[in-house]
């Protein structure tokens, strides 16, 4: 409770205010993809964003990642522009596509952020992450030799290796089969619990959102705005058993209704 109270006084890790993003169409016209959005994410929390296809949830994540510029409003990450955090190599990201470099081994792919940050590779940290995602036996394998689920684990290890201030996950398990996806959700929950990095996850899956997050944001169809903001009070660490608890189902039902209404 004390930890919660101190957290309240910290500046939010991510502060999105009056954000609007328009996409240009032909002949100078444009369409509003997103906004206005106001969203504060507390340091150390895990926030999931769900919404119908095309509602702009990935666009919101991309704006926080500095990949898309706001048309209006602002995005502050750790009280700075995303570009500042990028320059300090303090953002971690994983996409639906693994984006691994095919010519590098698992170990080299995970070590890549050290090189891009012009730091010497911390081999112990790389080993720690290889162990954390359970790929010790594959550390010298190349991406083409791995299954889809293993590749996403490598991508998540790579996102975490520099201990970023913020971890951004854009549908990281969206292309995986249901069984692998559930397994990786359980693993991601465990990994997150050991690292406690402020995390924003964009997902289509309500189950995934409820299982992983402290807070689930439901967005409306385009132009996406925040429709619901639901706290998830399930105790951590959460294991497989959470998935069959009545409280879990009550939350997923509530969110499913909110999403249908959206």
């Amino acid at each position, binding site marked *: 409770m004390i930890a919660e109270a101190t957290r309240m006084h910290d500046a939010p890790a991510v502060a999105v205010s009056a954000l609007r993003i328009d996409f240009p169409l032909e002949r100078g016209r444009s369409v509003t993809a997103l906004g206005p959005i106001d969203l504060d994410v507390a340091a150390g929390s895990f926030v999931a964003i769900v919404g119908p296809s095309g509602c702009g949830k990935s666009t919101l994540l991309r704006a926080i*990642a*500095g*990949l898309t510029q706001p048309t209006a409003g602002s995005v502050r990450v750790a009280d700075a522009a995303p570009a500042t955090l*990028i*320059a*300090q*190599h303090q*953002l971690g*990201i994983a*996409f639906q*596509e693994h*984006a691994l*470099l*095919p*010519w590098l081994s698992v170990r080299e792919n995970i070590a*890549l*952020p050290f*090189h*891009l*940050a*012009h730091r010497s590779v911390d081999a112990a940290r790389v080993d720690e992450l290889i162990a954390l995602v359970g790929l010790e036996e594959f550390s010298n394998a190349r991406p083409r030799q791995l299954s889809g689920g293993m590749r996403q684990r490598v991508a998540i290890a790579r996102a975490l290796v520099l201990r970023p201030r913020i971890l*951004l996950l854009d549908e990281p398990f969206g292309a995986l089969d249901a069984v692998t996806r559930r397994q990786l959700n359980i693993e991601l929950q465990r990994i997150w619990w050991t690292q406690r990095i402020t995390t924003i996850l964009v997902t289509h899956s309500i189950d995934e959102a409820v299982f992983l997050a402290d807070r689930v944001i439901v967005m409306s169809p385009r132009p996406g705005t925040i429709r619901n903001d639901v706290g998830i009070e399930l105790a951590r660490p959460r294991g497989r058993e959470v998935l069959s608890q009545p409280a879990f189902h009550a939350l997923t039902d509530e969110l499913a209704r909110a999403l249908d209404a959206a």
Partner: protein
Amino acid sequence: MTRTPVWPVVAGVIATAVVWELIGRTQAFGPSWAPLSTVIAWAFTPEHRGLLADGLLQTGSEALMGLVIGSCAGIALASLAVIVPPLAPGLGAFASLVNGIPIIAVAGVCVLTLPRDATPVVVAALAVGFIVFVATSSGLASPLAVQRELFSVLGASRLARFGRLALPSALPALIDGLRSAAPSAVVGAIIGEWFAAERGLGPMLVAAMQNYAIEQLWATALAGALLSIAAYVVLGALRGVVAARFS
């Protein structure tokens, strides 16, 4: 990776040899079409063998030098266009312009302006440069959008993007370009020799035509073609190795 089966190649070579031989024997296209057997017999008599080997060595080394120099220039220009984006349109136009000059005209100018023995190498390099430039440019543009975005979010410098993403991604296309360029290097070297040189396949072709030495003409042409094919095959094998590693 699926391997191209060998038998169609073998069948093609045999068919070509048979057709060549038949046309020569029947004189369907006149007396200046020497049958393959006669050409080979000419090529393997001791004095001609030395002559051909000397020509092949000369032209081959010029073509190789031209391939190396032209490739370096093509890779350097394509890389510069990526590292300094404002230069890209200008460099592309420059490369197209140089490529647009007929190779014969280039050779003529080289003879007038360069040392004699430099002409074949320079012409070969020019023939190669544009092909490698285009292949490298397209290879450097090949990383996936998501890979570029990853590098953006991780705060990669422009040089790191180039060295750690664009260049390794470009290697298969680059080697492909080298393979396509290798026969052009041989042709470029021969055309360069044609104007100026005293040794090599080019002067042997000139001498054969002037003296109506039919067998020498065909044997020299065949030697040039084999040189091109050899370069193509060697670089094709290299491409297989690189593609397996980098894609």
